[in-house]
């Protein structure tokens, strides 16, 4: 098990941000890079990151299980995370959650049978004024999501 040369290059750039004796500081970024390449973090992937940064594997597991944006299981091709906190809820995100669950036929934390979508409930994403907010694969944020815009988003994610 290894990561691609371009992923390793990215991790090296992250390691360079911290003092030479503090490579562990790069573990969050290294796990992000690894997840971007593999889609999720298997034990083998985390063990590789541990070895690469010279950390005990258990410390990498601790980090991966603490921060909620890491995928500890395979997800659908597109992970949709909807913020359902109070401010977003007041602006229609809970209704958007109902709409998505009905439309996809799954509940939160489930994946569609065709493996295309995983639906997650997220906590505050810092975009409250533009609710409802949907984050796709941890990277692309879509805001002010009406039912029409949700339909359009689902259609565009092949």
């Amino acid at each position: 098990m290894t990561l691609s040369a371009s992923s390793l290059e990215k991790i090296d750039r992250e390691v360079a941000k911290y003092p030479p004796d503090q490579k562990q500081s790069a573990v969050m970024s290294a796990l992000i890079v690894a997840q971007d390449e593999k889609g999720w973090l298997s034990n083998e992937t985390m063990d590789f990151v541990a070895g690469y940064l010279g950390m005990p594997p258990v410390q990498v597991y601790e980090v991966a299980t603490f921060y909620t944006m890491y995928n500890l299981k395979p997800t659908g091709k597109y992970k949709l995370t909807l913020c359902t906190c109070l401010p977003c809820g007041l602006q229609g995100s809970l209704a958007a959650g109902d709409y998505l669950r009905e439309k996809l036929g799954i509940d939160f934390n489930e994946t569609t049978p065709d493996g295309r979508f995983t639906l997650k409930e997220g906590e505050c994403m810092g975009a409250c004024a533009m609710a409802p907010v949907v984050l796709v694969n941890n990277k692309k944020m879509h805001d002010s999501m009406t039912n029409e815009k949700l339909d359009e988003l689902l259609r565009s994610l092949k």
Partner: protein
Amino acid sequence: MLDYGPDAILMKGIDGRNWRLKDYETRDGYKALKKIIQEKIKPEDLINDLKKSALRGRGGAGFPTGLKWSFMPRQFPGAKYVVCNSDEGEPGTCKDRDLLRYNPHSVIEGMIIAGYAMQASAGYNYIHGEIWETYELYQEALAEAYAAGYVGKNILGSDFSYEMYTHPGYGAYICGEETALLESLEGKKGMPRFKPPFPASYGLYGKPTTINNTETFAAVPWILRNGADAFLALGKPNNGGTKIFSVTGHVNRPGNYEVKLGTPFAKLLEMAGGVFKGNKLKAVIPGGSSMPVLPADTMMKTDMDYDSIAKAGSMLGSGAVIVMDERTCMVRALERLSYFYFEESCGQCTPCREGTGWLYRIVNRIENGQGRMEDLALLDNVSDNIAGRTICALGDAAALPVKSFIKHFRDEFVHHIQHKRCLHENMEPLWGRTQKEKLREAA
């Protein structure tokens, strides 16, 4: 064109596209830094200016910034750090994201000046992982600042060297707590540390460290360009300057508005387009979800500054104003808040780890028609057993909303328990159904 209001100074002239270095320079950007370097202004003079300006921390606690900077042992040999807390995840708060994506160089310049004033060796900006596009944009802005010689070795030809880096959060609210953030920067779980020692003596990697909010750093260049007195004059004594408020919930134009501290709440509400569809105002959380809720009539008489909101019985916090109109079911609203703290408790302290779960489950059963009258006393009791008994303030943040919701809207909770439904029919068309209701419907 974005409009942050006529009083804006940090967001003045921002249109959403003019975030680059050349744009920032046309807005007098990096002038303060150049002056400091060229005139070799003494660090203590900068710190005194900040003290005089009455700039207070914009992240939540409202601690005076100049005083905080003065705690750093500037003469301490070796590494010292400046950290920017951009892990913006307090429900209702979305201002730092706008600063980082629309005016990133104001944050960068503020962090460089902080580095100079505290004789730090490096600055890290810890940015909320959910706003990845903003994270990348900020990195691009930082690269511009390096290329222009504002950051790095021998800044503008002086003997002051200072490196700057970014670090991503990845979905942990607790990392907005400064010592949890430091743990996270060190590559660990974000669990808060005991204080003392405070970060100024034992911070990142055990070195002296000062952590400020994004908006706090962004205000520094303006203060040093225009003078501490000018900044103070914008606000009120002890409450200097402007503040970006994120107005969310039941308003016609949710968004960020930058107003002078001391502006009446009624005026801020008007800027946000008034209450949704002209409905009647019911309640407002004036400072982010961790602060006590206030009823409409109290809010309408309150000014938006640290001291006035404290006097009214809440806190200005991060400046997140969550507006709720008459249709809002306060039980459901509290259920959402309690779920958040249950989900985000780091699990280090037993009262918070266990207590937040208790709070959520009790509010949830009241919301779902399974509440008992003794639950109200139980909620009070559990809240009291969390608040003040944990390492960090997350425990208090979970307990305060519960107590204030029950205090001000007790009749709604009682009605929910007695009648298994909301006080009024069809209280909230935008609200969505709870999980349990949905399951019941399906059965």
